[in-house]
């Protein structure tokens, strides 16, 4: 059965990698700052899922923390960037 898993994890990894690439495209392309921030946010989410999938591929739970922290920091980063766009400074 491991071939199913092999193929599916590989496909998932590639799909998530492509998702990252799409997000990165928006990040690079803009055109406005907020577009880049959305791109950044989804880049983080895709990357987080990539880690979870990688965990499945390597049958290891060691990457959970990384995924959790990535979720957390994706939020912090996006919120900080958005706050900057909103107010011109992150902490008032």
């Amino acid at each position: 059965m491991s071939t199913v898993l092999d193929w599916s994890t590989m496909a998932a990894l590639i799909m998530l990698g492509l998702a990252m690439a799409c997000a990165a495209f928006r990040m690079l392309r803009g055109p406005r700052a907020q577009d880049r921030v959305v791109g950044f946010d989804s880049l983080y989410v895709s990357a987080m899922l990539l880690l979870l999938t990688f965990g499945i591929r390597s049958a290891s739970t060691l990457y959970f923390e990384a995924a959790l922290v990535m979720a957390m920091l994706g939020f912090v980063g996006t919120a900080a960037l958005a706050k900057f766009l909103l107010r011109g400074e992150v902490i008032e």
Partner: protein
Amino acid sequence: MPRETLLIAVILLPFAGSLITLFFRSNVRNLEAYLAGGVAIAALALTALSYPDIVDGNVIRSKAAWIPELGLEFSLRMDGLAWAFAVLITGVGFLVVLYARYYLSPSDPMPRFFSYLLAFMGAMLGIVLSGNLIQLVFFWELTSFFSFLLIGYWYQTAQAQASARMALTITSAGGLCLFAGALVLGHIAGSYDLDRVLASGAAIRSNALYVPALILILVGALTKSAQFPFHFWLPNAMTAPTPVSAYLHSATMVKAGVFLLVRLWPALGGTNEWLVLVGSAGLITFVLGAFIALFQQDLKGLLAYSTISNLGLITLLTGLDTPLGQVAAIFHTMNHATFKASLFMAAGIIEHETGTRDIRRLSGLRHFMPITTTLATVAAAAMAGVPLLNGFLSKEMFFAETIEIHNNSLLDQALPYIVTVASMFTVAYSLRFIRDVFFGPPSHELPREPSEPPFLMRLPAELLVLACLVVGIVPAHTVGPVLDAATRAVLGTAAPNYSLAVWHGFTPELFMSVVAVCGGIGVYFGLRPYLLTAEGPPLLRHINGQRIFERVLVTLSWRLARRLETVLGTGRLQPQLQILICVSFLAGLAPLYARGLGGMVGPSGPGRFDFAFALVWAVGITCALAAAYQAKFHRFATLIFLGGAGLATCISFVWLSAPDLALTQLIVEAVTTVLLLLGLRWLPKRVQEFGRAGTSLNGVRWYRAQDFGIAIAAGSGLAALAYAIMLRPEPDSISRFLVENAYTQGGGTNIVNVILADFRAFDTLGEITVLGIVGLTVFALLRRFRPASESVPLPEQQRSQDNYDEAHPQRRKGDTVKSVMEVPALIMGLLFPVIGTIAVFLLLRGHDLPGGGFVAGLAMAVAFIVQYMARGTIWVEARLRVLPVRWMGVGLLLAAGVGAAAWVFGRPFLTSSFSYLEIPLIGAIPLASALLFDIGVFALVLGATVLMLIAIAHQSVRSHRALPQSRGAQAGGSPTREPR
């Protein structure tokens, strides 16, 4: 007293006296003089004690170990030559002290003068008594230094400053050459010991390094003795107080050069190079000095040039390279010291009594000061070479020596005629010194009404003149034995026959003397009309040594240096970094180029192509390049790209089996992003300008092309290095031990964490210290932070939102942001305990699984940041106690304290221990000291990160708002204490 001790005492006395004098108050005049005089007379007496030994031809030595490793001992050595000089130095020194006591005015600070003078005396004695070359150089440079202080004694005048500086520069530079010469000489001779050096003359002269050594030493000697072309510092040094001139510029310092020539003659002399170099320098100086002296209008200037000329004569004598020449040189040195010192004293008396030294203004002083007139006349006669005075005797020997055949060149044959002519000028200026000053009608337009000076002021000159007379009349019974001993010391057993008598019959040299005296009188009267009016000698009037020197000095040591500094260095950052990168690139490339990379080994790692990994890196590389491309004009976008590149790095860590790294990298990156965003607010707006002025465009393009090349080279270089290593088999690394012992002896399954908290906990301790330090620095810097004026106003967004709120009557200022942030702020508030829980979780499990104090601390800091973001600084700090500095301190203490606790058990610092603690109900819980250590790390990281972030954040509050009294963060140097 043993003779060895005696030598040491002679040297030490003046230095000790100098030190003691320094502590006197400046108004204790007599005591100073007594002490200084006492020291001089004591040194003289001690020197005199060894007279019997010296006359017997013995050499007194005293050696003490100094630096045996370098073949250097502290070695004193007194032979006849040294003795003669020591007597001169101490004897004249005593007289000068006596004289100076009366010469200096009450307003001059006495302690300084006598202290310098005694120190100088000690240094001078050091030169003549040195038993090795290095020690000689040591004292040589000391004399330069103290003479600088003495010449600059009246430092208030620009002239004194300039001449002191010139004297120091020239003589010290000469001294440095002498140092080099001594090193070369020691290298040739295989020792710096004077006896050994003097004994290996033949070896030295045949060595290939002989000429360089000779030149270096000559530069030293000739500068010190003010010989052409280094002579010009001496006349300028006449700004020194006259006692200084009487001492340094007649009897002692300038004699150091000729002393050295005579001293080293056995080792260096006897070659054509010596004859040409020393002889011509002496001859030119002798002639030139005599000529210029005649045209001086300043009494001391005349004496200065006369000194130069006489020293030239002595140099010429040593340069003539014959034993008799050396004898004459020694003899004339002694004679010159006596008559010139007394003449300087006379000049000083005149200045002291009349207030001027200008020969044109002085006249008929014999009416006011007959005794001084007599003294000066006798001394000047000695200078002129009048029979029955000491100057005559050495002059005779000189003339005799010039007649001898040396290398039979044209110059050699012309020598007697040249020196005779020059001697005419000697006679002429001596005559002028007497006649123009003391004779003629009494002058009544002097600044002061002159009278005879006090007896004790005259006494030194009287004693010196007496010496001139006595030596001149009965030489054989007075200086005879001394000269004999000195000669033997220089020449060894091969002392030539010479006779010290006033009358040798009608010899050619007598004829030359007569011609010189008669001719001199003629010259004087012939040139008198010119002398009365002119300023400086004909022809040479416009050549001002000082001005040339200063021009050259300024050009070389200032203009050229400034040019070179800008050519060889830069104050700009970009070229520095360019150089740094290029140099390190080359440093990495050179070995590869020289040795080649060897065969590439096949892939040793996970060779499989991983499409997802490649995709991640496609994104990462694109982000990196975009960041590089956009960083100038789109900072916000750049930060986002930076985040993308960081994310790729982080995912790579996951791929490469490094979960801890991934965690850390992630969290650090997020915090960095927030930090940079905080900073962005204070940076200037930058708008892309298209089509800027075309002038510098090409330059800019060229720089960019350069930088682009460097960037490509550096990037591909690093990539190549990494690739090369990755394809090679691993060496047997120390990490094998770490893996094998991480659990069994370190008590943790997360090997990386065991390394950080145990194997290499010392690194971690240092690393958190760095973080703490940076926290402190950031805080310190920001306390002084002043934003640029254009950054002070509120950001555009806030202004427009405020304007909107104010424009609508139903809204209050801040409503817009409040309505936007309402829901997010609630969520973010709830996140505080959630993130906190995650942080504690990461902290506690670190030793066994990914996590650890550092990551946990940063996570906790993130929890704080989120609150600041949601609610703003003032709100948060009114509610939470934020004491980052204390947290840092406690964390550091905890981590270091855990390390130090090992001492209690007699183990080295940071020895860990672990055990399982049985608690009822709960079971065994692991208790590792590493966990405590990690908690320390946690506290410090939390403190430092929060400190840095909020220190920056506080600037927004400081710059445009007043912070109300907050109950949080009262202590700990927290930024809340900054009300501005």
